[in-house]
């Protein structure tokens, strides 16, 4: 007696509805907002996540570099640069967020790169910007739940 081969019954299991995609979208927006906050005010991105040590370190180090860079009469690049290096310098300087305008207020006498001090000042300002961008990215990654 031959056995009939029947196809196994397929059952449809209803999965519970979750709100994961919406939650992920919200947390991504919050993470982006934290990153932008960290860019606008150095250390704010970490402060919003209660990482006080990192927030203070970012604020003080970026602030110190900006104050010394402007005090040494470094070049603060503007949007109407002449070449690619000026534009890159402008992007780097903008990385300091609101501190860019503080630097402009400190350096009332204008840049003086005819001396080594002014040249160092230019580097300090650019480094402050890049460092702040790095810190803002770090705050963004931490807000997304990556190990930081």
């Amino acid at each position, binding site marked *: 007696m031959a056995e009939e081969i029947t196809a196994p019954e397929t059952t449809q299991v209803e999965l519970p509805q979750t709100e994961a995609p919406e939650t992920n979208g919200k947390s991504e927006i919050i993470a982006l907002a934290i990153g932008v906050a960290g860019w606008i005010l150095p250390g704010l991105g970490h402060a919003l996540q209660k990482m006080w*040590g990192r927030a203070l370190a970012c604020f003080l*180090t970026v602030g110190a570099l900006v104050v*010394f860079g402007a005090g040494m009469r470094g070049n603060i690049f503007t949007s109407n640069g002449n070449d690619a290096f000026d534009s890159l310098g402008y992007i780097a300087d903008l990385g300091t967020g609101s501190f860019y305008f503080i630097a402009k207020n400190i350096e009332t006498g204008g840049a003086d790169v005819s001396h080594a001090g002014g040249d160092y000042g230019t580097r300090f300002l650019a480094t402050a910007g890049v460092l702040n961008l790095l810190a803002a990215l770090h705050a963004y990654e931490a807000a997304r739940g990556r190990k930081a």
Partner: protein
Amino acid sequence: MNFHLTHFQSLVLFAVTISIAFGFLGRRRPIDRIKYILWSLFLFLVIGVGIGWAMYPFSH
């Protein structure tokens, strides 16, 4: 506000600030941060002064 720093003072200031920032961002435990800051500062100074001396023959 005007600051007049020598080359070496500028180098030290740069090295200290960057080392502190990297130490706090890159490490979590306080002891690890201190170790990282000191090691990074040491390397900044040694390599900076080393490059300075390596360029010395070209300026004379």
